[in-house]
Structure formats: structure tokens, C-alpha cells
């Protein structure tokens, strides 16, 4: 990305060389740059359209996954799982069911029962208490890595969860590496399906306790999912990696004794989270894979490949990745798919080597999955408990299995346990073979199905094409602005030709600073004493932000959209600086979280490119100018984050108006910052300032 940026910048330089300096025969690359910049309107339309087209083409360009790390060798060993192991699992499930029928609401006892089973199998067992609330917004903790949030102060015994973990020491290992298996289980109000995951895991555990090939320790964590799936796993991981040496108050609470018993098993090579829920709608058992962790990070593709390979080719699961269902029935996407299919067929006829055509139905499926992948990466919120592992650089995925039978059918249960445990056994055996941590395959990719992916080298093209017009237009506007300004002032003392942009940069900087403050405001608003509804909080936020904007526009003339004169700068230079700021922001964001940058670019790039002072356009009265004015008005309206949120909500069928929208928006943002999503920072520090600047340009006098 940096190279693209540099190249784009080079073009900018080259053109600036040209202006002013004595006429020298310029090099071809300089001429190319000049050519691009002088025709920037045409090229920006072409590049933007190509960017959107490339985005639509992505499902076609997806490659089949392959196992890149040779050491994994999935499915090369025969499964050693016996019926005795499976019956162990069934026994545990039955015991838990019976226990829960007899003892209502005795949370800790179920954990004790599981712990007893684990230790009978020969594992080291310990319990961990944790406090359910952990996600606190702190503006400065965004990128500081995982922190041991030690909120040991007022912890009450009223609500806490208990995790059970068992460790099998590997006979051939040295205790420095481990593989983690997590089964979230809610012992109080968990359904019957949830207990099945314990059955699968305990079948597997019973096998692993006696095999000789293990070289990495196995940790089985039964996470207490009473307060959500994520929190118990995060609390356990935080204790595992950053132990707090202060004694927590929770230790004193009654129940199980947890002091001084936390055990570790070295660095984690991989983690698998197993969940069983709901009945499968299909004929086969269904396995859904969830991989997105916080800020759009993905586990190594090899892990998904291994699971997918074993599930499809050995165990006969129907494997799926989440998709946006509403897109499957959208007619325009279907038409696009059919067009691509037709073009592909024509191309195949022309040259039999061109085989990029895929059926329209596959295209539809692929784009629905891609959209879901993009959406969950862009939100930056992990799609399951596996997200907690990624914060510690551990590759992890969540496997959600839906059996095709009702939960109390004994006969089918045995078969289900067998297949589930065999899948996990195969995966663990593959990971067990690894000598290094996962590094061979991709970390940066998008999934279009469980066996197809788009690598970073392909999807970056779409983004690069989309943002390529920004530096070109910035350079051409800069040159225009400078020339116009030099003509208007003939005072030699003020002829700082090369420093014209300083005034505009000041304005852009002021608005970005404002955006930064607005981003931090929720932290202060959350500190306001008293209980406030999200709607009230959003009103507080809106009023403070707008009053801040007012103060800025009064103190620094030119920063308000409605000031009568722009202070010494003309709009072209301002727009050029704005576009540069947007370009830098988008490029940075594309490295932090690609999906956010892509969606942001789709909104921001057309808005930044098209916006021009409204007054000139209206005054000229030509159809073209009026059309452009209309377009920029529409784009600026959509570009406002709240408006975009409302529109996207409206599209998904949850239309909102008025104050409830504010409350909803606040809740949404709260979820973003609670999960430390960089998308929140992007909205506040890149998108909002650029939107304000576009507003300034729109209402500026020519």
C-alpha cells in the first residue's frame, strides 16, 4: 500500500516540478503524471468505476483454498476414537441433564461435576472465577494491546462466573505448547443442545487422555457462558497471559476454592471453540465456521482449511460460512451475476484457456458471503469467543454445529458425538504436528465460501483503484488553486507561492482536532453521574459537539460552513488539502482494517471528488452544473454518519426516525468502542472531519 501511495505521490511531485520551473525536457514518467493530472476528471471517473467494478468482480476472482503448511497433513492418520470414549461423553451429558433436573439453579455444582469427570480422565483440573463486566471504554487504550483490566475494586459476590479448565499433559511434549478447546456452557439456563457440545468435547478428551502421539498439551476450557460467550474466555485468557498478583475479592466468595490453582500449559498453537445449537435445516449436520476477530483480524487460513477439509471429506458435514441472506434474493445482484456469466462464456469461446466464468447462482452465493465477511470485518466486533484469542496472537475459530436430530434422540446422539469428536481429533492431530506457529498461509483474506478465499493482493486492487483519483485530483486542484491565487495577488511580499496551502491546512487541522475531541466526548459523557437513556446521552453528545463546532467556527474563520468569506484561501486549495487528508486517512485505515476502509472509501471518495461550491453551480444555471449540485447535495447527505446509519437500518427493514434513531445510533457506537473497534476511530477522526470539510466547500463562496 505504501508503494502505491508513494507512486501516486510521485505523480504529484512530478507535476509540481513542471509548474514554474524553466522548461526542461521531462522524463516519460513525469509526462505520464502530467497527462493523468491534466485529465483528472476523466480518469477519476474511470478509476472509481473500475474500483466498484473490481469489488463486484471479487467473487469471480476467489481462489480455492489449499493447505499451505505441509506439516499439517490433515486426515493422514486413522481416527483412534472408540465407542468407549463416545459413551463416556454420553454419560457426562446424561449426568448433567439428570443433575439439572434434580437441582434447580445450583450453578457451581454443574462445574464441579464436569471437573470431577475431567480429573477422572486424568487431567489437571482447576476452577477460575471471573467478574462478568469487563468492557470499559477508555479512549487511550485502543491500540495498546491486551491489558489486564484489573477492576478489583468493588467486586461483589452477587454475580460471578466460574470457568472449569482441564489440562492433559502431552506424553511427548515439554509443556511449552498447547492447544485449547473451548466449550461455552451456561449451566443455569443453557438448553439441551448446548450440553451436546460438552458431550463431544468429553468424548475427545477421554481419547486424548490415553493417546501417545500428543506433543502439545491439551486444555479443555468449559467457559461459563451465563454472561455471554466472549467474556469468560477473555477473562480466562487475560489471567493466563497477564496474571494479576493482587488477590481478587472473588476468591473470598463461597463456592469452589480457586486460590493458587491456576495452571498453564505454555503458548497456544491454536484454539477451537465448539458450540452446538439449534437443529439443522438441511438433511446433513451443519457446521458453521466463524473466524472474524476484533478489527477485522482473521486467523491463519490454514486452520480454516484443515477444519473444512476434514469436515467435508471425512465427516460429511455441510460446512457453511455466514452470509447476508437478503442479498441472495436481490434481483440486481442476480442480473450482475448473469452478465458476468455471459461474459465469461463468451470469453471461454474466444479462448478456451479463459475459465473465469462461474454460474450466476454461485456468484450470488459468493457475494452474499463476501458481503457478510466484509460487514463483520468492518464492524470490528468479533463474531464469537474466538475473538479473544486473536488479541494474544493465537489463531482460533468458532465451530457451530447444528445436528439434524432433536436433542433427546439417544440413537442419533452417539453417531453425532462420534463424528464431531473425530473432526476435532483430526484437527488437533494436524495442529499437533506443527513445529512452528501458523505462519505459512494467509492472514489477510476475505472468504467467499468455506473453501474459497480472496487474498490481500486481489482485494487491495479494488481499493487502490477506488482511491487512486484522490491524489490526482488533489494535485490538479493544488496547481489550479496556486495559479489562481498568484494571479489575484500581485503583492510580491505576500508571494509565498509554495506555501499557499498553509491556511487551508490550518483549517483542515482544526476540523480534525474537533473530530478528535468529538470522538473522545462519549468517554466524558459516560462519566456524567446518574442513569441516562441512550437517547439522552446522544442528545448530550450532539449538543456538545455542535456547540464545539460553533466555537471553532467563531474563533477560526473559515471553519464554519456558513461563513461569508474564506480566510485567504480559495476553495480549490482547501479541497485539495481535504482530499489529501482523506487519502491519508483511508490508506491508513486500509492497513488497520481493510473492510472499514473499503466501505468508507465507497462513501467518502465520491463525496470528496464531486463537491464544489454550491453558489457558483446554482448561479451558472446550466443543467450540468445543477445536476452536479444535486449529486453533491445527495452525497453529502448520505455521507453524514447518522444518516448513513439510518439508511442502512431502513434497508434492513428497521426504519427509525427522530430521537429513537439517536438512541439507536448511540447504542451502536457504544458497542463499537466497547469492543475497541478501530471503525469508531475512523468515523470520528477521518470520516466526520472530511464530511465537515466537504460541507465547508459546498457552502463556500466561489
Amino acid at each position, binding site marked *: 500500500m*505504501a508503494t502505491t501511495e508513494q507512486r501516486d505521490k510521485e505523480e504529484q511531485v512530478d507535476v509540481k516540478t513542471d509548474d514554474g520551473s524553466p522548461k526542461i525536457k521531462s522524463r516519460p514518467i513525469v509526462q505520464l503524471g502530467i497527462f493523468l493530472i491534466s485529465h483528472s476528471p476523466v480518469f477519476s471517473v474511470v478509476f472509481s468505476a473500475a474500483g466498484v467494478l473490481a469489488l463486484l468482480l471479487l467473487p469471480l476472482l476467489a481462489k480455492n483454498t489449499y493447505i499451505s503448511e505441509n506439516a499439517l497433513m490433515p486426515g493422514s492418520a486413522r481416527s483412534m476414537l472408540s465407542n468407549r470414549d463416545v459413551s463416556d461423553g454420553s454419560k457426562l451429558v446424561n449426568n448433567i441433564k439428570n443433575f439439572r433436573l434434580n437441582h434447580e439453579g445450583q450453578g457451581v455444582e454443574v462445574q464441579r461435576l464436569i471437573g470431577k469427570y475431567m480429573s477422572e480422565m486424568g487431567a489437571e483440573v482447576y476452577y477460575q472465577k471471573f467478574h462478568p463486566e469487563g468492557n470499559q471504554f477508555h479512549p487511550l487504550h485502543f491500540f495498546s494491546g491486551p491489558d489486564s483490566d484489573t477492576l478489583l475494586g468493588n467486586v461483589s459476590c452477587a454475580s460471578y462466573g466460574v470457568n472449569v479448565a482441564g489440562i492433559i499433559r502431552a506424553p511427548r511434549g515439554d509443556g511449552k505448547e498447547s492447544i485449547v478447546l473451548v466449550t461455552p456452557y451456561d449451566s443455569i439456563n443453557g438448553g439441551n443442545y448446548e450440553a451436546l457440545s460438552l458431550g463431544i468435547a468429553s468424548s475427545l478428551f477421554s481419547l486424548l487422555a490415553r493417546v501417545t502421539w500428543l506433543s502439545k498439551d491439551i486444555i479443555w476450557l468449559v467457559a461459563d457462558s451465563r454472561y455471554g460467550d466472549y467474556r469468560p474466555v477473555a477473562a480466562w485468557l487475560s489471567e493466563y497471559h497477564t496474571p494479576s498478583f493482587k488477590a481478587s475479592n472473588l476468591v473470598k466468595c463461597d463456592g469452589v476454592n480457586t486460590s493458587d490453582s491456576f495452571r498453564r500449559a505454555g503458548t497456544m498453537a491454536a484454539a477451537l471453540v465448539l458450540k452446538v445449537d439449534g437443529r439443522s435445516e438441511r438433511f446433513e449436520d451443519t457446521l458453521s465456521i466463524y473466524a472474524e476477530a476484533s478489527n477485522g483480524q482473521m486467523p491463519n487460513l490454514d486452520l480454516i482449511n484443515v477444519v473444512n477439509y476434514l469436515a467435508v471429506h471425512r465427516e460429511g458435514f455441510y460446512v457453511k460460512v455466514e452470509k447476508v441472506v437478503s442479498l441472495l434474493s436481490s434481483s440486481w445482484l442476480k442480473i450482475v451475476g448473469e452478465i458476468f456469466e455471459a461474459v465469461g462464456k463468451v470469453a471461454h469461446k474466444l479462448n478456451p484457456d479463459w475459465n473465469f466464468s462461474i454460474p450466476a447462482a454461485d456468484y450470488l452465493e459468493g457475494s452474499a458471503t463476501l458481503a457478510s465477511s466484509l460487514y463483520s470485518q468492518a464492524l470490528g466486533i468479533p463474531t464469537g469467543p474466538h475473538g479473544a484469542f486473536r488479541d494474544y496472537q493465537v489463531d482460533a475459530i468458532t465451530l457451530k454445529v447444528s445436528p439434524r436430530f432433536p436433542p433427546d434422540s439417544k440413537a442419533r446422539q452417539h453417531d453425532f458425538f462420534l463424528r464431531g469428536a473425530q473432526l476435532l481429533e483430526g484437527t488437533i492431530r494436524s495442529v499437533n504436528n506443527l513445529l512452528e506457529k501458523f505462519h505459512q498461509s494467509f*492472514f489477510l483474506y476475505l472468504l467467499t465460501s468455506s473453501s474459497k478465499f480472496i487474498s490481500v493482493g486481489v482485494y487491495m486492487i479494488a481499493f487502490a483503484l477506488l482511491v487512486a483519483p484522490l491524489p490526482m485530483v488533489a494535485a490538479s486542484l493544488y496547481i489550479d488553486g496556486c495559479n489562481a491565487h498568484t494571479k489575484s495577488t500581485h503583492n510580491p511580499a505576500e508571494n509565498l507561492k509554495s506555501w499557499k*496551502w498553509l491556511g487551508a491546512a490550518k483549517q483542515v487541522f482544526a476540523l480534525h482536532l474537533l473530530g478528535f475531541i468529538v470522538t473522545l466526548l462519549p468517554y466524558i459523557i459516560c462519566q456524567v453521574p446518574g442513569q441516562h437513556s441512550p437517547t439522552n446521552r446522544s442528545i448530550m453528545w450532539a449538543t456538545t459537539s455542535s456547540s464545539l463546532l460553533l466555537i471553532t467556527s467563531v474563533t477560526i474563520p473559515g471553519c464554519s460552513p456558513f461563513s461569508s468569506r474564506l480566510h485567504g484561501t480559495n476553495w480549490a486549495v482547501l479541497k485539495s488539502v481535504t482530499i489529501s487528508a482523506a487519502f491519508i486517512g483511508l490508506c491508513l485505515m486500509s492497513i488497520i482494517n481493510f473492510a472499514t476502509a473499503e466501505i468508507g472509501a465507497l462513501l467518502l471518495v465520491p463525496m470528496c471528488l464531486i463537491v464544489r461550491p454550491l453558489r457558483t453551480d446554482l448561479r451558472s444555471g446550466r443543467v450540468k452544473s445543477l445536476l452536479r449540485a444535486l449529486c453533491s447535495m445527495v452525497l453529502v447527505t448520505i455521507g453524514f454518519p447518522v444518516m448513513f446509519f439510518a439508511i442502512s437500518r431502513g434497508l434492513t427493514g428497521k426504519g427509525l426516525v427522530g430521537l429513537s434513531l439517536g438512541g439507536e445510533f448511540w447504542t451502536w457506537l457504544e458497542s463499537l468502542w466497547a469492543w475497541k473497534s478501530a471503525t469508531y476511530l475512523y468515523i470520528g477522526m477521518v470520516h466526520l472531519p472530511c464530511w465537515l470539510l466537504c460541507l465547508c466547500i459546498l457552502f463556500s463562496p466561489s
Partner: protein
Amino acid sequence: MTKDDGEMAEEEQKKKKKPCRFWIWALTSVIFRLILISFPGNLNLSSRPEVSTPLTSIRRLAEGYWLKQASMSPYAGSMYHGSPLLLSVLGPLTVQRIQGQSFLLCSLVFVIADILSAMLLRGIGKKLQMAYGLNARLLGHLKSSRDKGILRCGDIAALVYLWNPFTIVSCVGLSTSPIENLAVILALYGAVTRRVPLAAFGLVIATHLSLYPATLTIPIIFLLGYGLDAPPIKLFLQTKSVENEDRSTSSVSKQAKLKPTTGLPFLWKTVMHFVFWVLVWSLWLLVLCGLSLSKYGGLEEMFTRTYGFILSIEDLSPNIGVFWYFFAEVFDFFRNFFLIVFHVNILFLLLPLAIRLKHRPCFLAFIYLAICSILKSYPSVGDAALYLSLWALFVNELTDMKFSYFLFCGYLGISLLSPVMHNLWIWRGTGNANFYFGNAIGYACFQIVFVVESVSAMLNHDRALRKSDSNHREVKN
């Protein structure tokens, strides 16, 4: 970067109105630093590779001090590589804890160092501004004696120094580079104001702290020998000859008696004075260092552990320079050869630049510092802060500098990209060393473009003067 230039723009507009604006902005910058210092844990700047290098990190200094207190050599354990004198000055401050913050006193020392540097820069700027006005009047470009239209480069440079995010970050991030910068600026200030002992003192201390300022000997000797920055000497001779021709019809004036010489007189006496003082201060410094390290291996230990560490690039942890990556890759038996090649780079550039820019010694000092910052073994943003503020001293000459906006965007983008790349590599594990190194290469490229453009803008400025001067003459004739 945004901030500093934003403020600069502000200043440029306001400077004509009131000089007290300067003090308001300076005070604000100090308050801003103090606010930032009060959140040490949250910012965690002192562990950033961009801010603290193995040479400038205060944590390493504290470690060295601890070792010394425990009657061991401060250089034991390969943690500390700085000066033993800095250890004696800052060391006691590192152990003082105030309200649970361990390095509060040190940060205050750095803030004071920054303020002093800014004041000295302002002093240098005033001198340079006066010289610029004087030269312009001598050459006949400026009729009035009011210096109208000349930017107050001292104020601008001081504010650029105080408000530059790089300076702020290295001050708040507890690296010792503010003190190194202060020593360099002190040397230049001494030379500009012709206080020879002060210049020698600054130079010796700066060289002692970070070795690379030794290159400044050449500009300082030029400053003392030839005087402040001025247009090339030929211009004055031409102007004088024009004036002489004008007056030749009248009675013989004093000026006519002056034979046009081919160069300015070089003040050998002052330079010898300077050399003497350099020797005196070096001796003093060596004695002090020798005393403080007498029990732990003496001066030899100091030279191998400080200068040896700088020159042999032992620490290959990532930084914003380009050496670490290369020397992590290179085979051991080529290592010495490439060490020589890399270090000779700086030496090769010294002489041609000195010849070309000998009429502008301050500018030469700026160029040397910028080149050192590119080719340093352990660079940090503190070095960039120093040369950027020195660059601001020449705003009058460099008004027509090209690519200013492009460079600004580049510095801004690189400095934002660097932490992101580091995060991707170290914390997320999805990137690798090439990501961060690519960023370092980009940074080096932008610095090179910056240096090249500054030099060419300065030479163009001189050329423009000559052209306008010859035009002037033609008109008169």
C-alpha cells in the same frame, strides 16, 4: 506535523501585529507538554521505537544508574550506552518517585531543555534575520531600513521547535534527545553570537553525547572564520564595482581605494581560539569521564561502549532508520566491510557540501544534521525535530521551496503509518519486518527529497539574487 505547520501559519499571519503572541504560543506549548506528562502510563511513548533508541532511552539510563549504584560498571549488561556524565546528572532524578510517577523530574528537565533550545533558536534567528536584512540592503534589494517583508525567522523557528509533534513526542516520551539537541543548538548559538568558548563547549558536549554532531566542526569554523550566512561574495564585489564606476567621475572615495579581493578574509585568529577552546573542553570532559568511570574500566570502556556501540551497530532492534534491517541480514564476514561503507557515506558528503555552501555556514549545519539523521545508526524523531526547526530559520531564503505540500503530506503519512505497521508486525502478528522496514525506507526517501529540495531552493535563491543584481546593474548603466 499538522499541528506545527498549522501553528506556523498562524504565526506567520500574526507576527507582524504583536510580538507577545510568540510568548503566548510558547507558553501554551509548555502547558501542553505538562498536561501530556501527567498521563505517562496511558501514552506509553517511552517504549516506542520511533521515540527512544538504545542510546536515548531513559529506561536504559535508569538501569545504568542502578548498576552504578550497585558498584558495577554502568555499561555492564549492555543496557546503557550513553555518556557517564548524563548518568551523573539525570541518574539521581530517575530514582525519585513523585506521586507514583517514576520519571517526572526527568520529564521536567526535558521540558526545560526544550524551552532553552527554543530560546537559543530565537537568538540565532534574530542574528540571521539581521544579517539577511543587512545583506539585502547592501545589495540594494531593500531600500528602507525597516526590514519590511522579512519574516521573523527566529520566532518561527522557535515555535516550530516547540510545537513540532516530533519534539513534543520525544520530550514526553522520555528520550534524552532534547538534551542532545540543546547541546547542538548551544554550539550553533555560540558560533553565531561569536562566543567562542560557548561554541566549543556546545560542540564538545554534543559530540560526546551522540558522536554525529562532530560534523558540525566544519560549519562552526566557517561561521567563526567568515561570519554569518550571506549571499556569495561575488555579488558584493559586483555591487561595489558598480558603485565605484558611478563614483569614478567624482573625487576618489574611500571605497575606490579598496581593491576588489577574491574572497572574504578568513579570521584565523578566532578559529585558532576556537580550536584551543575545543581542546580545553575535551580535556576537561575526558578528565570528568575518567574520574566517574575510574573504577569501572576507565575511558577505554566508555569509548567502546558508546562510540563503539554507535559505529558497530550492535543493537539490531527495529527503529526508523535503515541500518538495522540490513545488518540483521548481512553475513558476518561482510559485516565490517559494510559498516565502513555505510559510515563513509556521511564523510563523503561533507566535503562537496562544504565547498558549495561555504558562504552559508548555518544552512550547511542544517544540511549536515539532516544527512546525519538519515544515515544515523540509531535515529529517532528527535533528530528530525532538530533539523526541521533549523530549517525554519531559513524561511526567508526558502520561500520558493518546491514540493512543500507533498513533503508535508509525506511526513504526516509516514509518521502515522509507522505505529500502525509496528502494531501489525509486533502485536497482531499478521505483518512482518518488511512492513516496518518499508515504512523506514519511505521515511528516508522523504528526508532525502527534503534535503535535496532545501539545497536546490537555497541555490536557486542565490541564483535569483545574482540575476536580479545583474539586471539592477544593467538598469543603472
